[in-house]
């Protein structure tokens, strides 16, 4: 039986999280008036297939892929146009990875109908052969447009971009992985090379918008949210490349309660978001063209996967 206090908390949570018009006026044009796109997203799930154990120093009892799957199933039942995306670093972090090397994660993500993920730096933790072996279990695209994979074992499993066709509109999705310098050892990434995220992103957007005629463009990025040291991050990417509507990030394990909006070179806004780590939260962004002045209304919320927890802000970053 739920207590009155808990009920009121849930009621106010629904109010706060469900219908917040975040922003009107992205790159999206009026091509699918009345249509709705729901984007569910995770990042840095780090092999957290079971919830955090009771003796965890942080997040005890939170997370778990089976609970996440239940939520996703529910949203898919309610909405007709749903994307489920991941910002990378599915591998490493619990004994599940030590025993199975990421195969179980990718198989279960396939079972949940993930639409795409980007390659994170930890996907290289077992070298290219280990990555390729696990990737065989992925029944969905693994993206990284700035990684050159030719003549390597991972080449068959990594794509630059995909186009998802919905009822009357097209969404282009491309991946940007972190640059290897100082992050992924040469012996692990082998002959895969990483290239400048901004240059590659510009080419990707041009291809998706001009050639593939996409109405909406999403970048799955594992660059990290923001740095002070000059390394390219999601904020820099958003401000440097026109034509990206949304960046779903990873790597820095950043818990953003709400997305941020960065003005890009075309004068429009790019949404940048990231959802912490370990599947503690699932993010959700709804685009509804029937909102203000015919422009898309962005509704933002996130789901805490089984939480009695209070604020998760300000958690220390560890070994990203």
């Amino acid at each position: 039986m739920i207590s009155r206090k808990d009920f009121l908390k849930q009621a106010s949570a629904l109010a706060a999280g469900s219908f917040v018009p975040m922003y009107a006026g992205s790159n999206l044009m009026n091509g699918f008036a009345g249509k709705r796109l729901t984007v569910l997203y995770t990042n840095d799930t780090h092999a957290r297939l079971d919830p955090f154990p009771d003796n965890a120093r942080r997040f005890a009892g939170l997370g778990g892929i089976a609970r996440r799957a239940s939520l996703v199933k529910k949203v898919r039942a309610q909405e007709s146009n749903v994307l489920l995306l991941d910002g990378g670093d599915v591998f490493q972090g619990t004994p599940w990875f030590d025993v199975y090397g990421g195969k179980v994660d990718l198989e279960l993500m396939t079972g949940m109908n993930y639409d795409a993920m980007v390659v994170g730096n930890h996907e290289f933790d077992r070298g290219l052969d280990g990555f390729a072996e696990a990737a065989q279990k992925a029944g969905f695209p693994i993206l990284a447009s700035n990684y050159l994979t030719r003549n390597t074992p991972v080449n068959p499993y990594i794509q630059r971009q995909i186009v998802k066709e919905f009822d009357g509109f097209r969404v282009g999705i491309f991946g940007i992985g972190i640059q290897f310098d100082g992050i992924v050892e040469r012996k692990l990434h082998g002959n895969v090379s990483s290239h400048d995220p901004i240059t590659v992103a510009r080419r990707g957007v041009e291809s998706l918008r001009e050639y593939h005629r996409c109405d909406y463009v999403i970048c799955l990025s594992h660059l990290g949210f923001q740095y002070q040291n000059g390394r390219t991050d999601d904020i820099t990417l958003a401000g440097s490349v026109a034509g990206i509507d949304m960046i779903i990030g990873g790597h820095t394990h950043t818990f953003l309660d709400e997305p941020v909006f960065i003005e890009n070179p075309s004068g429009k806004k790019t949404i940048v978001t990231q959802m912490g780590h370990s599947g503690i939260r699932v993010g959700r962004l709804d685009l509804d063209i029937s909102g203000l002045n015919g422009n898309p209304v962005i509704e933002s919320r996130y789901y805490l996967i089984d939480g009695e927890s209070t604020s998760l802000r300000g958690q220390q970053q560890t070994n990203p």
Partner: protein
Amino acid sequence: MFRTLTGFAIFILLASGCSLFRPAIPEESPALHYPEPDSAIVQMLDTYRPGMERLMGRSIATVRDTIGFDQPEGALGNLVADALRYRAAHETRGFVHVGIIGESSFNLIFEPGVLTLGHIYEFMPYENHLVVLTMDGEKVQELMDQVASLGGAPVSGVRFNIDEENRARGILVNSEVIDPNRDYLVATTSWAANGGDVFPALWEATGRMDLDVSVRQIFTDYFRGQAELVDFRDGRIR
């Protein structure tokens, strides 16, 4: 039940007008709760559990007390810092003066009962290796000031007090007053030495040895060698 309450919540929301339509509540997460696991995913995951148990269920040690990373000094912090220093001495066949590791790398506290290999891998999920740094006494003093400014951290081979200005005072390295002009060997992890963690003094070491020993293996071996893991503190940071 939840569905009924949710419907009522939406009714309240609609009846209350737009004043409720505000961004996130600062202290309470604006979240919805979905605790019911999906049975198909549970089933898929369960098919892999026996293999997991076979490899990770092996008993490594017995934990007698609940032990964690307290400040200024905690039993689990003492264990991991001692493990690094002793193993570094063993590997280098010499004396290693100091052990240090940031507690942010660790995910668990230990509770009484059997400690399995899986617990250790969950406890320390990162594939870091052992590094031995050469630092002069002045840098070691700076390093301990950084430890003191945090209110304490896992260290081994040193003793000191934290003064009112959160600085390390009266530092003894292996029972001798620290000498700013001599070199000391400091055992730590590759993550800390490479610029991770919160001890910038480590990044200015004058010498470095990378040893091909996994930090998780060090903990596994060290815990296995203990009769019992207990809440042991010796006042190394006061």
